[in-house]
């Protein structure tokens, strides 16, 4: 195995600058938030491990589906949904980790032409904007989860698994992502401080 090969994203317009796979605590994190930052790193690591298992599980489930259908001639009814649950769960749960390494790509064309100070304000605004959207999404996921749980909703297939399972994963993932964004917003706003002092 060659560790030198750079891993690059699929079909994207711009490579995320310096986005490796390692989380770190930003130097501008206020001391009172450091325990939270450390905790998030640990949680994200655990969640990534779960995501890896879910990814492998879905691949194995789909493979077994092909094998059982053609070797044992039995019908397959639950495999597709089970792997959907695994993959949707992995996607939402891992979104906080991806945000932690700034792996959600955006159009960075503007950042190179803005002066340093304006750019910092831009980054802070973007982070707060993302937080607002994700917090809203997390809140609505929670109400959706509550509804599905209280009404005992199931999917419409013959297997009919309860819908609270994927909704729970979505809600947890979005909550974690919101906490991650809240931390990053505080850090980005914190970074505005020295430049303000310079201006004063």
């Amino acid at each position, binding site marked *: *195995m*060659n560790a*030198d*090969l*750079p*891993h*690059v*994203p*699929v*079909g994207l*317009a*711009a*490579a995320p600058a310096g986005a490796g*796979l390692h989380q770190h605590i930003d130097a501008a994190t206020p001391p009172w938030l450091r325990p939270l930052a450390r905790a998030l790193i640990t949680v994200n690591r655990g969640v*990534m491990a779960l*995501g*890896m298992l879910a*990814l492998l599980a*879905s*691949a*194995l489930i*789909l*493979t077994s*589906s*092909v094998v059982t259908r*053609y070797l044992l001639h039995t019908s397959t009814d639950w495999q*597709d949904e089970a*792997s*959907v649950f695994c*993959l*949707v769960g*992995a*996607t939402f749960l*891992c*979104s906080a*980790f*991806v945000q932690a*390494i700034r*792996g*959600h*790509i*955006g*159009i960075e064309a*503007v*950042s190179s032409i803005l002066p340093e100070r304006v750019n910092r304000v*831009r*980054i802070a*605004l*973007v982070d707060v*904007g*993302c937080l*607002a*959207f994700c917090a809203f*999404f997390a809140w*609505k*996921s929670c*109400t*959706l989860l509550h509804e599905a749980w209280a009404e005992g909703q199931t999917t419409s297939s013959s297997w009919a698994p309860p819908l609270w399972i*994927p909704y729970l994963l*979505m809600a947890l993932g979005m909550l974690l992502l919101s906490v991650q964004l809240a931390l990053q917003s505080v850090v980005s706003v914190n970074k505005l401080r020295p430049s303000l002092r310079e201006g004063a």
Partner: protein
Amino acid sequence: MSMLVLGLLFGVVTLVIMFSGMPIAFSLGAVGVLFMAVFMPASSLDTVTQNVYEEMSSITLLSIPLFILKGSAIGRTRAGQDLYAAMHAWMGRIPGGLGIANVFACALFAAMAGSSPATCSAIGSAGIPEMRRRGYSPGFAAGIIAAGGTLGILLPPSVTMILYAVAAEQSLGRLFLAGIGPGVLLVGLFALWAAFQYQREYRAARRRFDATGQASPLLVDEHFTMSQRFSMLPRVLPFLILLTGVMVALYGGYATPSETAGLGSILALALIAVIYGVWRVRDVAPILSATLKESTMLMFIIGMSLLFSYVMSYLHISQSMAQWIVALALSKWVLLAAILLMVIVMGFFLPPVSIILMTAPIFLPPLKAAGFDLVWFGIVMTIVMETGLIHPPVGLNIFVIKNIAPDIALGDIIRGIIPFVVLMLLTVVVISAFPSIATALPDLVMGPLSHPT
């Protein structure tokens, strides 16, 4: 508020939020939610998350993480270099054979891994230094790899095509097959150009040698013995068998596309475990985490793009724009050219996934009304988006090449790439003139559709 004002407002807000640098996924979602809050009934906000979940929980879309897993399993091993070395040994005798070997290796790797940048980095990291060592000009070497890498989104299994299949409601199997003919055509053209450019550089080196006595590695002949050639095969054949096995599973009717993705990724993991000894947790974990990083980012963009298009269609913006385009009564080919031009411009800034999902509801109805086959258009659009991967200002493959060979000047890389962009646009023209290059194979394998043209 009139439709025009609403449409313009929607467009401007989208542009402003996107160019603020907000991640594409969150900007699309935020625009959607914002317009829902202002222009749609309050109850629609309650179902935002349900909408996103229902759109995302499609098993076809969710084959994307598994195809990425298959690609990154193969991409993280030396498989790329081995494939390249074998191609080189077998084609070393042909003039320009090294360049052609690189094009072929890119095409095969792309077909296995399904990703353009991964192809560039896997083949390029061995191919570019070797081509330069053998006297190829740096720009030419970079151009071959950058262009060869773009084949990743055209040859099956391509993430871009999966999205197009979902957005355009076309058969994924048919789209995959339709990509093969144009893919082979592009490989052929790239190889011809590589041979032609090699001859030019060879003659220039010869003239320099005759005039100044300055030797060039281009003038040195290279030979591989038959035993050397055959000793390369055992490491490459399993991957070629994987490639054909997956295709047979899909087109023999043994597996659905998503099952193929699951099966393919398990087989790829098994192969790298057997051939390269990559099976320990610490070897496999980086492959899985890179896959998750990649697929999470993509699936978020996809989920939020679908929310974005849902709002656009609820507010009748997409339908009005589509009707407006139809009402222009442009001639068929002007319409196609205009749409492709817009795709090129969007390709400057956006990844193919968002271009497809954002524009499908606007562009596809007029194209259908004009009598175009949407499977065929998917192929043409994909080739056009491929050029976006290699042309400035943000061609991703250029960054990958800068990463592999930081000492090649950007200007050289771009000069080396331009002929390939021209060849790709030429291919678009050829496929427009002869649509059967794309549609013949799916018609043959899956039975003809009633083509409107």
